[in-house]
């Protein structure tokens, strides 16, 4: 995958979410993003370590509109692949990319989670004018 372009998109999404929230609050002079939590699916094609390296290098690069990300800490939660067996309905965690139902041994299944890269939460520090 292309972790740097993913991180660029991530930073834009973080700023957008922070701004949206601050607009709802009103009277904010500065917003500092403190923590970012993402979920990285095992089948997303994204390498968490490379995302982490790129984030530390690129944070702060897209700051504008009073939102700063230069001190943001990134937490990456690995999302295992979860699948549902089409034959027996059993839901199971896929280990080592072996898409085999542990109950009925069928390989006919549907992925429920683990294919995506999600921005889950952000913690922001707001300076409110009094």
């Amino acid at each position, binding site marked *: 995958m292309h972790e740097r372009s993913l991180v660029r998109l991530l930073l834009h999404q973080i700023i957008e979410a922070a701004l949206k929230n601050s607009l709802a609050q009103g009277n904010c002079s500065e917003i500092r993003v403190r923590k970012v939590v993402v979920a990285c699916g095992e089948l997303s094609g994204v390498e968490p370590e490379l995302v982490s390296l790129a984030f530390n290098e690129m944070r702060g690069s897209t700051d504008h509109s009073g939102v700063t990300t230069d001190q943001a800490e990134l937490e990456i939660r690995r999302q295992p692949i979860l699948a549902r067996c089409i034959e027996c309905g059993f839901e199971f965690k896929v280990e080592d*990319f072996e898409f085999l139902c542990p109950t009925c041994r069928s390989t006919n*299944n549907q992925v429920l989670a683990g*294919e995506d890269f999600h921005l889950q939460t952000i*913690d922001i520090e707001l300076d*409110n004018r009094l």
Partner: protein
Amino acid sequence: MSQSTIQHIEVHTDLAEAKKRAACEFRTSMANQGTFVVNLVSSPGAGKTSLLEATAKHWGASHQCAVLVGDLATHRDADRLAPFFPVRQLTTGGACHLELELVARGLAELPQLPYQYLFIENVGNLVCPASHDLGEHVRVVLVSTTEGDDKPGKYPKMFRTSQLLVVTKTDLLNYVPFSVDNLVQDARRIQGSLETIEVCSLSQFGISIWCDWLTKQREQMLQNQTLFAERGNCPTQLAVPPKVTSFAR
């Protein structure tokens, strides 16, 4: 004076949502025009261009097809295919995969006919193209007998996201340590419903089976567009308008 407060915001955004939506819209739009979109993926040199040449020889002028072909540089593949199809070469510069924007741009440069089939020959690479939905109706992964039968387990996402495995260069099976059974077994651990076709494009072996498979898949698309619109993990359900089959199959 100012006061500082910390807020915790639940965002829960899929970073690829906009791209997924665009791919689903493209897929639906192509289906509505009766155009079946095939994304051909493989490692470099597995025989994607040769398979398309063989397909053209088998079908002759009976099918309306177009090709978009991706490479980092040169027009070599487009030049090979130009005698058979309307074709546009998509040169990616340094990029190791095609993206939908490039495909849409290439399609706009082709003669504006209703095509029955649009073949997208992706950049030779078993890694990155697996993560990029080009709005195709089927993803077809090629493995040649010269590159080893151990590839599916090493590149699981590519095989998980493909609907058909084409084994190419079967004329070399007697000369290389390659077992089609081992390859298929390895691939089906990852994608249980993966279909398989063996071909030798140079001798046209298996090409009629491949072409029949394409015809059948396109007919299924024309009969049930919803099935194909949902392929590619759409972020939301798309309303699929009634199918349009305005020209002869």
